[in-house]
């Protein structure tokens, strides 16, 4: 990791209290994000990837709690901030793009008014000035500024997600957390949204944490990829390294199970079993029940995250023992 870390997460643990018991959604998670970097956090449902985004912005649901760790942004520990200080942080320093553009826009407000409201919440200026900022922003994102007068229902899914992105960056944040921003969008629109996010990074030096279940998308957009399984970071590496030489058996399985387009192979490999129930996760390594190379140690003891090569971290006792084809 570089020394210029803008956002650094150290030993973060988040628990949820559910009717069925206590659930450790994120367990001892560390990650650093540099300026202008895009990191993808990849995992299946229940891996804790969305919780990570909520924890960074301190917007966990009422039954969720950060029980351990630090989240530093520009030297400030977010975990110790008061509610008032957090409001200064959210949107202005770190903002979030939510999964569903349908529900993250107010259906009863014009797009322009929503943008103006966001600006005026944080900046002192008159309404007209804020409106102009909004209109200019939309134009710079390739959206007709006439859209300012539209209501969300008048927009297509892709256009709505572009508006959500505009709202997320209107206050010039340094970090944007994008939580599955293209789920529910068709591939062509998805591609357009990825292009837009990459432009924001290139033109505005925004750092992005891109949360997704899709390794293919992660490859397209990010510099580094972090793979999560059942609340644990299991592998972290530069994207080409991760695709060329994945060392964790879960990453290997995930890569093989992407139905990648091809005409030579009809082979679709799967990982047996299902992700674990997080209230009663398996002992030892959480992946061992589904792991093709698990040994008895894996059932007893939890492996640590180890830097096996420079900047390539893996949590597995047998990392790299099985070559990836």
């Amino acid at each position, binding site marked *: 990791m570089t020394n210029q870390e803008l956002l650094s997460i150290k030993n973060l643990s988040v628990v949820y209290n559910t009717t069925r018991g206590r659930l450790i959604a994120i367990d001892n998670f560390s990650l650093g994000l540099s300026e202008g970097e895009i990191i993808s956090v990849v995992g299946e449902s229940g891996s804790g990837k969305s919780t990570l985004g909520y924890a960074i912005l301190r917007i966990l649901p009422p039954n969720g709690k950060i029980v351990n760790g630090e989240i530093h942004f520009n030297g400030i520990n977010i975990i110790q901030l008061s509610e008032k200080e957090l409001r200064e942080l959210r949107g202005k320093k770190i903002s979030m793009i939510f999964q569903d553009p349908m529900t993250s826009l107010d259906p009863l407000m014009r797009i322009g008014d929503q943008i103006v409201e966001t600006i005026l919440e944080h900046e002192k200026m008159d309404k007209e000035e804020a409106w102009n900022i909004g209109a200019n922003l939309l134009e710079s994102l390739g959206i007709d500024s006439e859209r300012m007068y539209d209501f969300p229902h008048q927009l297509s899914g892709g*256009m709505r997600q572009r508006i959500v992105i505009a709202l997320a960056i209107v206050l010039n944040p340094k970090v944007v957390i994008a939580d599955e921003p293209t789920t529910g969008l068709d591939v062509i629109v998805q591609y357009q949204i990825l292009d837009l996010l990459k432009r924001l990074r290139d033109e505005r030096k925004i750092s992005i944490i891109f949360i997704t279940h*899709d390794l293919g998308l992660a490859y397209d957009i990010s510099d580094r990829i972090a793979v999560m399984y059942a609340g644990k970071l299991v592998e972290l590496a530069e994207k080409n390294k991760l695709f060329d030489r994945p060392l964790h058996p879960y990453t290997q399985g995930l890569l093989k199970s992407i139905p990648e387009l091809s005409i030579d192979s009809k082979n679709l490999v*799967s990982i047996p079993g299902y992700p674990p129930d997080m209230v009663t996760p398996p002992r030892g390594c959480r992946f061992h029940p589904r792991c093709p190379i698990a040994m008895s140690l894996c059932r007893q003891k939890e492996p640590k995250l180890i830097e096996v090569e420079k900047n390539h971290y893996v949590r597995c006792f047998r990392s790299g023992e099985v070559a990836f084809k």
Partner: protein
Amino acid sequence: MMNTKIVEVENLRKLFPVQKSFLDRLLSKKIEYVHAVDDISFNIKIGEVFCLVGESGCGKSTTGYLIVRLLEPTDGKIIFRGIDITHIKGEELRKLRKEFQIIFQDPYASLNPRMKIGDIIRHPLDIHMIGTREERREKVLSMLKDVGLYPPEQFYDKYPHQLSGGQRQRVAIARALVLQPKFLVADEPTSMLDVSVQANIVNLMMDLKRRFNLTYLYITHDFGIASKICDRIAVMYLGKIVEIGKREEVLGEPRHPYTIALLTSIPGRKIAGKKLKIRGEVPNAINIPIGCRFYARCPYKKDICQELEPKFTKLSETHYVACHNIEMIKKDWPTLF
């Protein structure tokens, strides 16, 4: 000669009237229609996996529903094993339903939450009055085994909420297959599942296909999955089939700009390099343009495209493309891989 086609679709159309406000109805404004499926023809051969691919709103699911007669077609013909089933009703339709079944996209919505898994799978047997009580139970247990839900006795008495998404979809598959149909429509059966589970379900379906000699119409927006399972593919855009052909033809030498745009937009690194970028999104299917439906977004458009809707050009015995610019596309995109 034996008929090798299990399903034949001829000039099939489905228009949905657009809901009007009371005032508009009083003023008797013209009724508008969504052209969900607009004059499509294709056939599916016995033992084939036929994939219908397209973005949301292209009419692919509607086509599936029409074929299994969950929707009434506006126009056209559906022939199943040589019998015209377009307008059959009541008892006759119910009897035929034994032979064609459907698996829905959302396993959270397609299973009755108040019914036990065993009862859900047994229900079709009850309706068609097949076997004795004991035989039905045995049949359900063996179905549970066939779809990989072990131990079957335990799953029999569970409720849907106790199952994961992948397990639920297995139940839906068991329910669809319990009547031993010949033909199955699978409407995006894995789009709600995690990637690692997705492959399990697709592989299970392919395994069952071999064991029970099934034919599939597999509806998906995911070209990756289609490339792993299909024999032939049809690509739909705004209610029309724009390209149809064998797997190698459509994936390897696509000739419709929309197919190429879809294929090259797939994330990941297999198709690196050139991308055909197109602008905008799928327009609504109410005011259909006169010429080519893809005109507004097409990078290859020329004047004729706006005036004349392209007909199918035959590129091989099996490969058909509806585009005026095939030659130019052939030059720019000789092969995709």
